């Protein structure tokens, strides 16, 4: 059983390192139209000097709402787990 696990793990890690080797060379990302747009227009459209901030809170603001929901979820979950129960 142990060797099955080790074999499966080696397979997955080999797969992943293969992925790393096939990636585009480090430092030369694809011709990213979306990011080019952000870099060019974010300052004017969103009014923030920091492009990352404008992406987080404007262009991908819905993700940030989801992130807030995840945090809320975790808080409620921990409160649920560590509560005092009558029974």
């Amino acid at each position, binding site marked *: 059983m142990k060797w099955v696990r080790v074999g499966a793990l080696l397979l997955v890690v080999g797969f992943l390192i293969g992925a790393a080797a096939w990636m585009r060379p480090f430092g030369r990302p694809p011709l990213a139209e979306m990011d080019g747009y952000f870099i060019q227009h974010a300052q004017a459209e969103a009014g923030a000097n920091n492009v990352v901030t404008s992406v987080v809170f404007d262009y991908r603001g819905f993700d940030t709402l989801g992130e807030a929901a995840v945090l809320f979820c975790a808080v409620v979950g921990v409160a649920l*787990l560590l509560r005092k129960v009558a029974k």
Partner: protein
Amino acid sequence: MSLGTHLPILAIAVPLLGAFALPIFAKVHKRLRDMWAAAVGAFTCAMVIALAVQVLSTGVVVYTLGATSPAQTVAPGGFPIRITLTVDGMSAFMGLISALVGLASLIYAFQFLKEDQGKPLAMTLFFLLWAGMLGMEYTGDMFNFFVFLEITSIAACALIGYRTWESRPAEAAFKTMALYTVGGLLVLLAVAILYGQYGALNIAYLSSKIGGSQLDKIALGLLLGGLLMKAGAVPAHMWAPDAYGEAPAQAAMVLVANTQASLYGLWRVLFTLFGGVLAAPAVGWLVVSLGTLTLLVAVLMAVLQRDLGRLIAYGAVSQIGYMLLGVGLVALASRPDFGLVAMQGGIFHMMNDAATVGLLMLAAGVVRRAAGTKDLTALGGLGHDLKWTGGFFFLGALALAGIPPFNGFASKLLIYESSFRLSPLLTAVAVLGSILLLAVFARAFQGVFLGPKMREAEPAPVGMLVAMGILAAVILAMGLAPGFFVEHLVTPAARALWEGRDLYLAAVLGG
């Protein structure tokens, strides 16, 4: 601008708002909290149904978040930069399943959860889970899909651990959480690899770019692994019986809908994201064989169970096998003539499974509440006091096993029919699974409800009966008029996956 244009975002935002506001209302008064929850639930269902009607009558609905107008999906230059919600026939169908399950679960929860055991927190988590499921189903953006996947993971695991006064729920929740998180991270890694290749996150735009390189295959493998892990297919099914068995009944039922949302993600990946390059039958064979294996293993494990909750849980896992079998058949060959039938069978079975397994789980919840245990050896004779519950359980068991007048038969027939065209062996396995399931559930019914009266059991309150009644009505309606449902709901959904990729892409990218 009318309400109609904002339906997709409202269907996600209203339960989220409901979740955020519920603890505040709960502090004020119990009645106010219940009214708020009911209002939010009803409004969400109305939104989902209205959206489904809109999609089925006018085609794919696209909603861009944060743009000057929701219809402006792409920036000048023809590429999407903002998050879009894209609702086609399949998404709308899945939304209906989630709405049905969520509504029944909410009605059931009002009287099932006890006030002094953290009811407001559980209801808050339920709304978050509901919003997460709807978000997964409606979103058109890979990273956004991951975010909603994580919302459902966290909310679902917290709900599994609801019974903190026992030790087993926490254990089940920990196991589930570990597998869900690893699955989610595999999905994120795949999203990252796709982003690294094409510099985009929108499903439609990525789909138009994907060319089937080596990295695309690795990303497909990671997505398959992560989503199957979350759906509870066989190599990673260990969490499912624990989670379904230990979660409170109304949450276990939503968990079933949650696995189906992951399956929806899998279909979306297979048929839309990789729809243009998916010629390799290897993926189809993988899905079909995993489905068959899931079916067999789960049914055989169900035979051995002595706990009612785990028995139903293995029944639920086996149904996942049928869905994988049905839809996997389509991915097998490029466009076989039985493809549409198989797809219809697999997709119709998702709806049936949600209704029947949900009904069984709710009935098991009533049994546990009445008798204080779910151990089959200790139960018996409950039918004298729980007449309605026994009837609902019987109905659900027959429907799950696929006995002719009920809905399970309608969808399983479509799966048998199409799998027979590929290999009679698959059909034999599927039929065998159904027969074994019938035997298992007949034994469980006999053991729990029939026999001499052993103890006084408190009958189920009206609200819980109403929740079960809704599901039973759906089962009966779909069983008596399967043609109507197949024609008006299932076929648009199946077509959206089978040949609707071009429409999906055109709706987002224009042209």
